[in-house]
């Protein structure tokens, strides 16, 4: 009898991912026994599933240094102190615009649970230098200087073996640098993106919107450019997170 139910792609995938009920599985097994092509499709799907898993078993290490595991001495006390320090850290972070110095002495005493400290401490003293460059001029000479400074900084920290993260945020006239068609240095930017995984170019959505509204320009960004809602808001956010800020 040829009234075997049609096994759709969706069902087959669900079978590979073990998402079917016992009854549905039965149906699929039965169909597989009958249909050589189906079996082949299923094997291919399973291979794809395995390959995807394999491809990311070992992703490139993040540059930001390893977490040190917590040492567990008198866990009860450490836990309560650490919890309270966490609350404190969050209160500080929200209510005050602190200089890094105030947060650290208090938190540093919170036992050895460095993971918690890092989380509460908003990146601040993980030993990574974080610099945000701000470009808002469309002048190509200024744009070139910006790239030079960014690259010099990246090289400096690489040579000094100090982990660093650099972002270049472009708004206003500076957005030209990140736009296809207007960027004076698209190849250079591409090279820099390939060479430095700790570098990011960020475009301001507000500027993009404004260009559309006021000049009817549709912006196409260079590949790999991140977009943020507002350049200015991002600058403030980053500064609160402990990033250094430099205007180009």
């Amino acid at each position: 009898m040829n009234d075997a139910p049609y096994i759709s792609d969706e069902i087959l995938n669900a079978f590979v991912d073990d998402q079917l009920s016992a009854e549905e599985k039965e149906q699929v097994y039965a169909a597989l026994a009958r249909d050589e092509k189906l079996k082949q499709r299923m094997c291919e799907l399973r291979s794809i599933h395995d390959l995807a898993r394999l491809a990311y078993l070992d992703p490139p290490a993040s540059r930001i240094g390893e977490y040190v595991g917590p040492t567990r001495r008198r866990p009860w006390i450490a836990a309560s102190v650490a919890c309270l320090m966490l609350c404190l850290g969050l209160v500080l972070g929200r209510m005050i615009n602190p200089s890094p110095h105030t947060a650290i002495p208090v938190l540093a005493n919170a036992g050895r649970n460095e993971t918690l400290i890092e989380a509460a401490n908003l990146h601040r003293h993980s030993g990574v230098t974080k610099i945000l460059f701000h470009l808002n001029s469309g002048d190509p000479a200024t744009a070139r200087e910006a790239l030079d400074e960014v690259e010099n900084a990246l090289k400096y920290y690489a040579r000094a073996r100090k982990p660093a993260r650099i972002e270049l945020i472009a708004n206003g006239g500076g957005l030209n640098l990140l736009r296809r068609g207007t960027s004076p240095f698209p190849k250079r930017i591409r090279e820099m993106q390939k060479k430095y995984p700790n570098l990011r170019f960020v475009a301001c959505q507000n500027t993009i919107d404004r260009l559309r509204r006021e000049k009817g320009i549709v912006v196409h960004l260079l590949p790999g450019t991140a977009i943020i809602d507002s350049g200015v808001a991002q600058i403030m956010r980053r500064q609160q997170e402990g990033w250094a800020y430099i205007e180009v």
Partner: protein
Amino acid sequence: MNVLNLFYRTRESRRMLETSRARLYRVAYAWCHNAALADDVVQETLMKAYRNLGQLRDPKAGQAWLFSILTNCYNDHFRRNRETEDVDEQELIEETTPEMETGQLQIVDRVRKAVATLPEGQRQAVTLVDLEGFSYIEVAQILDIPIGTVMSRLCRARNALRGKLLEEFRQQPELREAVMRRVK
């Protein structure tokens, strides 16, 4: 008095968060193929999770909850203006790592390249299933989409990958052999 209980549960949750970092990173990296960005997103995710640990009633639901935070943080970083973007711009910049030069990791390289060409929604769905083994229901929760959409994205993603990778294998049969051997 439930002080001990509170701290115990908090400690369990904390431990869960601490051990989740590598897995969050793996998925974030699979989504954007950029180590620095992945780190950034994971850091934000963990911070948000610590802040909101109180909302987590059922530790078993912890993983899906954590990854849904990851999804939000990730999407925030790459907020897309759909109208101004071409398909081209979804292309990810591939990092060149030293391993990629050697033939050893050619397979990994090709698979990652293929994954990079998927539209983001498909990429997110297929990596959550393949890397983390989430159920379709969990993926639906994490990505905040109906379960039917999860299934169709998964199908399309795997079909696309199959197409790309099989084409490569056809051109290089020895690659296929190598893959079959590894996959066993």
